[in-house]
């Protein structure tokens, strides 16, 4: 194959630059928090989500009384989810489910997906359900909260 001409090389290099800028620019919002979450920006300081969220996760019976969690292996990934309650713990968890999320609602969506899948693997007395309550008061965002309930089969 004949090597490309200098013009072709220039066009290829320029295309690479333009494509990256086109991907990054729409996400460039100086008022967005967290400030480093540009997925295609090159600031190396893309730090953890600076959200301030708390999460309460419970397995409850038909009367909304808490039930004990099923026995989990020591390396079960859901342990981290069950134990994540405080803002720093939620921040650490967010890296595993919604890295570079722009809004608290994005984190909620990711949690909903994960917990709905997990609820289908759980077994508890008839009428039991998995409940999740997420409350966020993150900087530069309006307060956010959501509560979800997924039935758990016997």
């Amino acid at each position, binding site marked *: 194959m004949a090597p490309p001409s200098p013009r072709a090389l220039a066009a290829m290099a320029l295309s690479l630059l333009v494509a990256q800028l086109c991907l990054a620019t729409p996400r460039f919002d100086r008022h967005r928090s967290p400030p480093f979450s540009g997925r295609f920006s090159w600031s190396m300081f893309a730090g*953890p989500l600076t959200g301030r969220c708390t999460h309460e996760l419970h397995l409850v019976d038909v009367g909304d009384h808490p039930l004990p969690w099923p026995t989990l292996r020591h390396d079960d990934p859901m342990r981290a989810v069950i134990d994540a309650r405080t803002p720093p713990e939620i921040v650490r968890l967010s890296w595993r489910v919604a890295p570079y999320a722009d809004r608290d609602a994005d984190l909620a969506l990711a949690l909903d997906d994960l917990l709905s899948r997990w609820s289908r693997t759980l077994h508890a007395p008839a009428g039991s359900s998995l409940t999740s309550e997420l409350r966020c008061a993150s900087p530069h965002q309006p307060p956010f909260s959501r509560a979800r309930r997924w039935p758990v089969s016997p």
Partner: protein
Amino acid sequence: MKLFRDADGHAALTLQAGLSVLIALGLWNATAEWSPILALWSVGRPAWLALAPRALVVAMFLCALALCAGVRVRAFALTLAALAAALYALAPAVYHNNYYLLWLMTLALAMAPHPDHSLAWITAADKPAPRPWPPALAVFVRAQVALVYWVSVAVKLSHPMWGGTGHAIQWITTTRAPDAHFGLVNPLLQPLLSQPVLAALSEWAIVGLELCLPLLLFNPRTRRLGVALGVAMHAVMQEWLFPQVFSFVMLLGYFAFIDGGDRAFTVHYDPRNRLDRALAAHFPRVDWMGRTRWLPRDAPGPLALDDRGTERRDLSALRLLATLSPVTVLAYAALALLAPGADTVLTLPRAAVENLIVAAVSLAFVPGLLDRPVARLRATLDD
């Protein structure tokens, strides 16, 4: 300055082989980061689907090994890039800016028309000169390196947490670094960088450096200064914040700026000295850029390297030689990336161990500190 100055084939093969190794190391390192992510992704999914992301990762790693071996580089690079895109589509939580950069380099390997490197050429002591080839890969990498620096400047200048205020630096040293790693550098820097004035000054220094680095690298007259400043910046950042893959892709990318017009260095070695003989025999294996010529001395004398009319001897010569080989960057990358799941090494935090090793090696780069001990050591190796 010419952006598309013809590089000789050395640059093409160096970048191809170096990037291949970094891709493999980066993927290896990613396995530790991705493991908890993929474990959560697999929760509640059928067993066969739960295996899909892991199967993609294994396939990607096999492609990376093929790249390292120089087997049909463009085809395997394209396959690897497609597999990575499929993994991202399946499990978007695996995304990280570092791997995006690595993916772009993989695309560049796939697109740039270059002959394949080979393990035989990479490891040969007597490398035949590759034929000249238009510098497509070098052009991509130069443009990418410049883009990374300049977009970083744009981000830093436009966001309110940066913008020259120093707040980001203060947040990094007081919150992010202590939470992320147990390295030794942040405790040393924190008392200084938590001060608003020093934090702001350091932020402006980084912005200024990132703005100027591409210009220094593109210009042959200032390239050596650019490389020195860039290496210092990335080494400090790596040992402070451990950006990992990013550090080494950028450092390897500096080799893209070297072109066929850059001169070779003549090294006069003493064949009666065991260290010199070993260097003369084996350094050409790692001199992928083909920038050294080794000439035996007729009479006993020091290891000497001619640097623009200045003679560098012994350790000073070794310092310059270390900067001429991309294997130096790859060795640093291996130190940082080869044990991704290890939190401790010999009961010490892994980050701290890396800091100590890099600090020890850096002592050799302090002019005058170890020159005489090394010269005396070398003298003991005379036959």
